[in-house]
C-alpha cells in the first residue's frame, strides 16, 4: 500500500500498453493488407478491360483496325467513381487512339513478357495503370502494339479505407474484450493475496499459531516466511513466559521461608520501633507472595489459552467456586458478603480455570481495596451476555482511572499496596473469551461494581451421565 500503486493497476497498465502496441501493429497490417486487396481487386478489372482492348486490335486487309469495346469500359465502370484513361499504341509508337499524353514513364517494351502495373499521376490525379502488349502480324513484319489503361484510385482508396475501418473496429473490440478478460483474470489471480491479507488482519493479537491459508505457489514463500517469523516469535514469547513463571516459582520458595522466619521472630522482645519494622517486613513479604502468585496465575492463564480447547462453562458454577475461593475464612466478620446466582443456567464458551481466576482476582481486589461493610457477587443475564458482577460499598475507582487499572502493574491506590496484575488478568481472560470488563459508577441507588460480561453460548451437549 505504499506509493507503488496496486498490483492490479500495475498489471493492467502494462497489459494495456502491450495490447495497444499489438492493436496498432494489427491495424497497420490490416491497412497494408486492405490496400493490397483493393489493388488486387481493381487491378483485375483494369487488366480485364486492357485484355478486351487488345483483343479488339485486328489486322484486316493489311491495315491495323481497332474498335473500342464498350464492354471494356463497362467493366472499368464497376469502379463507379473512377475516371478512365487509355491509350492504344500501334507498332512503331504511333498513338492510334485515346489520350495521347498518357504515359507510364516506364519502358513500354517491358510489358511484352507480362502486363505491367504501375502507379502514377495524370491530369493531376493519382492513377493506376496497366500496360499490355500484343504481337501483330502486319505486312511489313511482326510488330508489338501496346494498350495502356489507367484508372483513378478513388474506388481503391474507398475500399481500402473501408476494409481498414472494419478491421480497426474488430481489433478495437477484440482489444477491449481482451482487456476486460485480463482485468477479470488478474483480479481472480490476485484474490489469494487479498485473502492472505484478510487472514492476517483477522487474527487475534495473541494468536501466534502458523497461518493456515491455501495460497498459490508464488505466494507460499511469503506465507512460510511469515509462519517462520510467527513461530520464532511464539517460541520467544513462551521462553519469556516460562522465564517469568520460573522466576516467580523460584522466588516463592525463599519467600515462604522468609515468611516463616519472620513469624518466628519474638515480637515481645523487640522494642516498639523494631516491632513496627517487623510489621512492615511482614506486610511487604505478604504482598510479594501475592504478587508472585499473580505472576504465576497470569502465566498459567496465558498458557492455558494457548493450549486449552474452549468448552461451554456454566457461569453460575464458576462464579460460585470463585466466590468460595476468594473469600478467606479469616474474613472480617463485620463484612457482609453475598452470592446471588442467576435463575436460568447461563453458559459461556471458555476455560473454567482461567475464568475462575479472573473472577477471584476481581473479588480479591474488591475485598482488599473496596469493601468496607458489604460485598455482593451476582450472576445475571444481560441480553446475549452473561454477566458476573462484583459490587462493594467502597469508594470505587474514579472513571479517569478505568483504562489505567487494566494495565499491568498499575495501582489505583497511591499507597503502594498495588495489586498489579489482578485487573489485567481479568481483562485478558474476558478479552480472550470475546467479552469485556465493565465498570459501573457508584450512585445513590447502586454501589460501585465491576462486571465481567461474556457472550452466552448454548448449553453443552449432555454426554451420558457425566455433567
Amino acid at each position, binding site marked *: 500500500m505504499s506509493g507503488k500503486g496496486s498490483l492490479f493497476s500495475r498489471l493492467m497498465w502494462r497489459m494495456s500498453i502491450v495490447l495497444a502496441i499489438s492493436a496498432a501493429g494489427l491495424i497497420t497490417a490490416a491497412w497494408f493488407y486492405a490496400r493490397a486487396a483493393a489493388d488486387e481487386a481493381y487491378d483485375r478489372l483494369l487488366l480485364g478491360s486492357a485484355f478486351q482492348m487488345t483483343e479488339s486490335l485486328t489486322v484486316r486487309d493489311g491495315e491495323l483496325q*481497332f474498335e473500342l469495346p464498350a464492354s471494356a469500359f463497362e467493366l472499368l465502370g464497376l469502379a463507379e467513381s473512377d475516371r478512365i484513361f487509355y491509350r492504344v499504341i500501334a507498332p512503331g509508337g504511333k498513338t492510334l487512339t485515346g489520350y495521347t499524353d498518357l504515359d507510364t514513364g516506364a519502358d513500354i517494351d517491358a510489358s511484352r513478357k507480362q502486363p505491367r502495373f504501375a502507379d502514377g499521376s495524370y491530369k493531376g*490525379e493519382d492513377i493506376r495503370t496497366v500496360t499490355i502488349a500484343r504481337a501483330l502480324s502486319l505486312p511489313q513484319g511482326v510488330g508489338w502494339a501496346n494498350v495502356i489503361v489507367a484508372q483513378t484510385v478513388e474506388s481503391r482508396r474507398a475500399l481500402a479505407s473501408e476494409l481498414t475501418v472494419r478491421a480497426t473496429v474488430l481489433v478495437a473490440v477484440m482489444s477491449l474484450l481482451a482487456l476486460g478478460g485480463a482485468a477479470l483474470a488478474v483480479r481472480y489471480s490476485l484474490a489469494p493475496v487479498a485473502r492472505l491479507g484478510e487472514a492476517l488482519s483477522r487474527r487475534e493479537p495473541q494468536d501466534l499459531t502458523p497461518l493456515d491459508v491455501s495460497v498459490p505457489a508464488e505466494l507460499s514463500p511469503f506465507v512460510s516466511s511469515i509462519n517462520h517469523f510467527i513461530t520464532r516469535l511464539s517460541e520467544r514469547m513462551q521462553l519469556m513466559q516460562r522465564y517469568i513463571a520460573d522466576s516467580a516459582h523460584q522466588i516463592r520458595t525463599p519467600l515462604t521461608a522468609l515468611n516463616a522466619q519472620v513469624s518466628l521472630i519474638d515480637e515481645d522482645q523487640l522494642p516498639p520501633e523494631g516491632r513496627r519494622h517487623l510489621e512492615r517486613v511482614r506486610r511487604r513479604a505478604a504482598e510479594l507472595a501475592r504478587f508472585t502468585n499473580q505472576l504465576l496465575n497470569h502465566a498459567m492463564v496465558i498458557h492455558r489459552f494457548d493450549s486449552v480447547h474452549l468448552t461451554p462453562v456454566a457461569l453460575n458454577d464458576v462464579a460460585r467456586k470463585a466466590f468460595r475461593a476468594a473469600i478467606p475464612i479469616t474474613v472480617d466478620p463485620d463484612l457482609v458478603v453475598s452470592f446471588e446466582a442467576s435463575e436460568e443456567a447461563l453458559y459461556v464458551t471458555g476455560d473454567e480455570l482461567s475464568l475462575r481466576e479472573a473472577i477471584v482476582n476481581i473479588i480479591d481486589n474488591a475485598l482488599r481495596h473496596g469493601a468496607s461493610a458489604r460485598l455482593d457477587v451476582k450472576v445475571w443475564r444481560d441480553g446475549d451476555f452473561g454477566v458476573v458482577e462484583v459490587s462493594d460499598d467502597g469508594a470505587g475507582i474514579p472513571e479517569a482511572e478505568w483504562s489505567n487499572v487494566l494495565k499491568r502493574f498499575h495501582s489505583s491506590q497511591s499507597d503502594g499496596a498495588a495489586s498489579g496484575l489482578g485487573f489485567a488478568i481479568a481483562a485478558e481472560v474476558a478479552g480472550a473469551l470475546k467479552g469485556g470488563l465493565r465498570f459501573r459508577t457508584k450512585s445513590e441507588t447502586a454501589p460501585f461494581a465491576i462486571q465481567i460480561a461474556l457472550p452466552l453460548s448454548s448449553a453443552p451437549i449432555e454426554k451420558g451421565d457425566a455433567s
Partner: protein
Amino acid sequence: MRLSASLATLALWFTTLGPAGALEGAREIFPAPGPEAGRLVIHAATDLDAMRPLIEDFQQMAPGVTIEFVEYVTNDLFRQAQEACTGAVESGDILLSSSVDQLVRLANDGCAQPHRSTETLTVPSWANWRNEIFGFTFEPVVFVYDRRSVPPEDVPRSHEALADLLRRKPDAYRGRIGTYDIEASGVGYLLAFHDSRQAPTTYGRLIESLSRSDTVTRCCNSEVLGETAAGNVRIAYNVLGSYAYAAARANPALAIVVPQDYALVLSRGAMIPNNAPRPQIGKEFLNYLLSPRGRRVARERAFFFDEGEPLPEGVDGPESLMESGIGRPIRIGPALLAAQDAIQRSHFIADWKRLIPRR
C-alpha cells in the same frame, strides 16, 4: 426542294418557337425580376424554348438572378467546354447537353466539379456519374410520322417494322424518311451508336433500308421535325420525345410512336464545369432542375415525359415504358467513353455516311 424546306423550317421556327430560339449559338438574357444580386450563365445544347419555362420558374424562386442563356449545337458546346476547361475561354456556370457522352468525356478529363445535395440523391443511379453529371430529363427516343401521308397500316411500331415498311414500299417513302446527320449532331451520333449496340442485326437491316430509301438527314431535331411538319418528310426516325411532343402539340398532323421493341431513353445531362465562375448559382439551378418543382414544370411545360409518369396523352406506345423493359436508358457512365473514342467515332460515322450521304 432544299430551299423550300429550309424556308419552311425557318417559318416554323419563327412561328412556333419564337424569335429568341431561332439561331443556334444565340444568346438570350433573362433579366432578374427583382434587384439583380447574381448572374447565371447557362451554356446549353438544349432548345431554349424547352428551357424557357424552367428558367422563368427558377427566377420566381430566385428573383435576384439574371440568367444568360447561350445556345449551341452539341458538338460546338463540347469544343467550347474543352477550351474552357483549360481556361482558354470563359466557362459557363452550368452546362446542359443532350449529348451526355460528351459530358462524360469532359468529366473524365477532369472538367467537372462534383455536387452533392438532397436533390442529387433522388437521381437514379443510371443518370448520375461521380456526382458530376446528372441526367435531369427523361426522354424516350421516338418515331414521328405525318398523319396526312402515312396510312394507319404503315405506321411502324418497332425498329423492325420500320425496316420492313421501307423494304415493302421503297418507292412510297424514298426521300421521305428523316433523321439526324450524325456527323453534325452529337446526340444523333449517340443515338445511332446505341442503336447499333442495342440491336445490331435490326440496326444493320434498318440502316440498309434507310440507305436504299434515300433518307434525308438534318443537323438537329428541330430541322427534322420542321421537314416533317412541312410535309417533306413522312417518317422521322430517332427523334427526342420532348421535341416531338412539342411539335405534335403545335401541329396536329404530327403523330408520335414509341417503338415497342425497344426505346432508347436519353437523359439530358447537366454538369458544373470546374472553371465555372459562379458555381454556387449553377448548383442552385441544378438543384432546381432535379427538385420536384423543377420536374413538375419540366413535365408540364418543357420535356413532357417523366420516368414515374405514364406517357403523355396522344403518344402511341407501351403503357409502362420502364417496367415493361422496353425503355433502355442510356446509362451515364464510363461506357459512354467508348462512344467518344476518336477512332471509334470516325469509323462509325464513315460507315454511316457511306450508306446515308447527306442530302
